[in-house]
């Protein structure tokens, strides 16, 4: 893997006039490298906090100077720290995997991991919107040989735009399942729609035409699957193998 220094050395990539797309691509790779390095550092600090907290737990368990009540209270604190460390470790692992793929235009990657990360990164918006966000697993997803950066972007937009559409108290469910020669990702919004979102998901969404184009380039398709009174659904099909067609870009 290239180091950050490699990524920012323009002479390595023969950058000249008209190479803006290449430059943008290298910029994405650089952002990915920075994030990956940062998440590695976080992971190291978390490991140290985890061990120090565990050591504290060992001491509390061994030392007889504590009363039973004190011991319980300390064990509670140790367990709270451990719980938060584990949550952060998981977040940081998502960030790390995402970062390592950022900027790649074509590689083989685990579709299940990508979906898991997109959901993980959207939990904050869901909490702010007071909409619950859940992922329903439906079998092991195949690996995709495609453009992970663009796919992650599309899946994130689908989730976030559905979170924006559903009113407070609603629910957004993400389903990803293996289908013939690909993966089907469905984002379903349940509950009444926000007043500003009464039209179908595609209409009025400035991203929609561009998204359809990008998904088409990847050999897949986007579809508004059904519109019921309180159920909105968008579906994204992605083929297992497709080298992106960027000839028109």
């Amino acid at each position, binding site marked *: 893997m290239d180091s950050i220094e490699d990524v920012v050395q323009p002479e390595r990539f023969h950058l000249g006039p008209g190479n803006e797309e290449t430059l943008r691509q290298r910029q994405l790779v650089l952002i990915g490298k920075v994030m990956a390095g940062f*998440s590695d550092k976080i*992971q190291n600090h*978390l490991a*140290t906090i985890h*061990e*120090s907290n565990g050591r504290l737990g060992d001491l509390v368990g061994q030392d007889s100077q504590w009363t039973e009540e004190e011991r319980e209270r300390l064990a509670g604190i140790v367990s709270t720290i451990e719980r938060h460390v584990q949550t952060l470790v998981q977040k940081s692992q998502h960030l790390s995997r995402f970062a390592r793929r950022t900027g790649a235009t074509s590689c083989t990657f685990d579709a299940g991991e990508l979906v898991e990360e997109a959901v993980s990164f959207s939990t904050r918006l869901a909490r702010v919107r007071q909409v619950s966000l859940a992922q329903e697993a439906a079998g092991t997803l195949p690996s995709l040989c495609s453009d992970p950066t663009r796919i992650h972007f599309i899946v994130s937009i689908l989730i976030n735009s559905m979170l924006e559409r559903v009113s407070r108290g609603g629910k957004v469910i993400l389903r990803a399942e293996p289908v013939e020669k690909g993966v089907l990702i469905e984002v379903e919004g349940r509950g009444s729609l926000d007043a500003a979102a009464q039209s179908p998901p595609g209409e009025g969404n400035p991203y929609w035409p561009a998204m359809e184009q990008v998904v088409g380039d990847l050999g897949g398709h986007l579809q508004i699957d059904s519109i019921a009174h309180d159920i909105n659904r968008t579906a994204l099909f992605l083929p297992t193998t497709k080298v992106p067609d960027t000839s028109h870009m």
Partner: protein
Amino acid sequence: MKVLLVDDEIDFVTTLSNRLGLRGIETDVVHDGQEALDYVKDQEPDVIVLDLKMPGMYGMEVLRRLSKTNPDIQVVILTGHGTDRDEEEAQRLKAFDYLRKPTDIDKLADRIRGAYRFKLEKTMAAAAFAEAGEFDMAKDIAKDAERLKTAGEIFKDEDKDKT
């Protein structure tokens, strides 16, 4: 059992060493890959718990060298930033196990004991074949831990024959 911990995060590895000590596993600690190789030259450990990303020499390079020079030493990778590719490479180089930081201390202690048991069985099997004059088999076992399974099956058959 002689165990070496190799990690450049000093606070982490010191605390880990303390906690393993409480669980009956005494360890020595070094902080980079070259130190680890120097240590191995002086006093061969049974098990090494090895971080991957360290200044100077990466853990994977240490594993690569050890797999050539000291294949009996069992290596448990313990890393905070390994990729799937790293895991595959570690498996290819016959690392005993691959764990991600942070890991449960009792799980790590179990893996270290498991690695030590495996090393003993492997050494004993190789010695038994050498004693029986099966030098090729003994050499194979010493080189390649996968052959231990085959050796174990042969021993079972021998036991059956004896009874």
